[in-house]
């Protein structure tokens, strides 16, 4: 039986104007990735300073310099509609890579922050 599940992966941004890249592995029983969402413990920094590239199974879904604000949803958005719809991507080797770039913006002062990548997935109940 298939069931919905959410996955969260975190990266830490400790230096201003730096690029942080990390690869995460999805569970083997995940069969589809339906949506993607990014959040942070300091939303304003993510909103104004962040851009990222996201790859799933080495396929690029969001290219370099894609602004994080375009993948964020505020609390005014209904919880079921917050994820950016990818349309049910097969995870292949299950590797998800995020390359996050922090860039100065005149409206914010840098402090270390966390970026969380959420994936809305569908998994098989039993292997």
């Amino acid at each position, binding site marked *: 039986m298939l069931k919905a599940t959410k996955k969260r992966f975190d990266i830490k941004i400790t230096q201003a104007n730096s690029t942080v890249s990390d690869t995460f592995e999805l569970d083997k029983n995940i069969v589809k990735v339906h949506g993607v969402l990014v959040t942070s413990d300091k939303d304003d920094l993510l909103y104004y300073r962040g851009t990222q590239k996201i790859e799933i199974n080495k396929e690029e879904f969001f290219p370099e310099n894609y602004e994080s604000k375009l993948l964020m949803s505020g609390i005014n*958005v209904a919880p079921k509609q917050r994820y950016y719809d990818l349309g049910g991507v097969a995870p292949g080797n299950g590797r998800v890579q995020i390359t996050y770039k922090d860039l100065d913006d005149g409206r914010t002062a840098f402090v270390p922050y966390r970026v969380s990548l959420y994936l809305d997935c569908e998994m098989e109940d039993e292997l």
Partner: protein
Amino acid sequence: MMKEGVIITKINIKRQGERKHFQIKLPNDTKYIIGIEYGGRLVSKADTKATDALPHAIAKSEVATVETPYVKAEYVEVKEKGRTFFKRNQLVGELKLQSSEESNWFYAADVFLNDSNIGLGDFSQSGFPVNDFTHGNKRTEEIVKVDAESTIIQGWYLDAIGKAQKTDINYEVTIYVWINVEE
């Protein structure tokens, strides 16, 4: 099979009233342009109204309790201290795009960075200020459908914020062109 992709182009604006002509090159296998989005980033720290934080509390109200001699009931009077005004969004510039295949612009937009009235109607005063990054809506591209056989888009951008404030503001406008690619 058709696949979606996005082409990102950055325009850097440095002078007030700057007008920029640019081209966006699309991959050769592009079939259609299906959507346009834009974003922006302030590069230099200039003291402009656009960089101010969004207004937190728009209207403050005061609650007064008055006891009348006839009826032992509470009469609650709500006085509005500040008048609530609808704020004008700060216009940053004008963006227009034209395909090489057809005459006239296929996309024209006034570029705004923030919604200045996002906190309007929030009477909770709960200490959780309303901002774009906490209360903003999910962003989606504006849907267009344009043939992309010539694979070149002509673009035009005119600065408005620098001109309005009579100062040089250095900022970037990022244009996202969503395309359909044949695999």
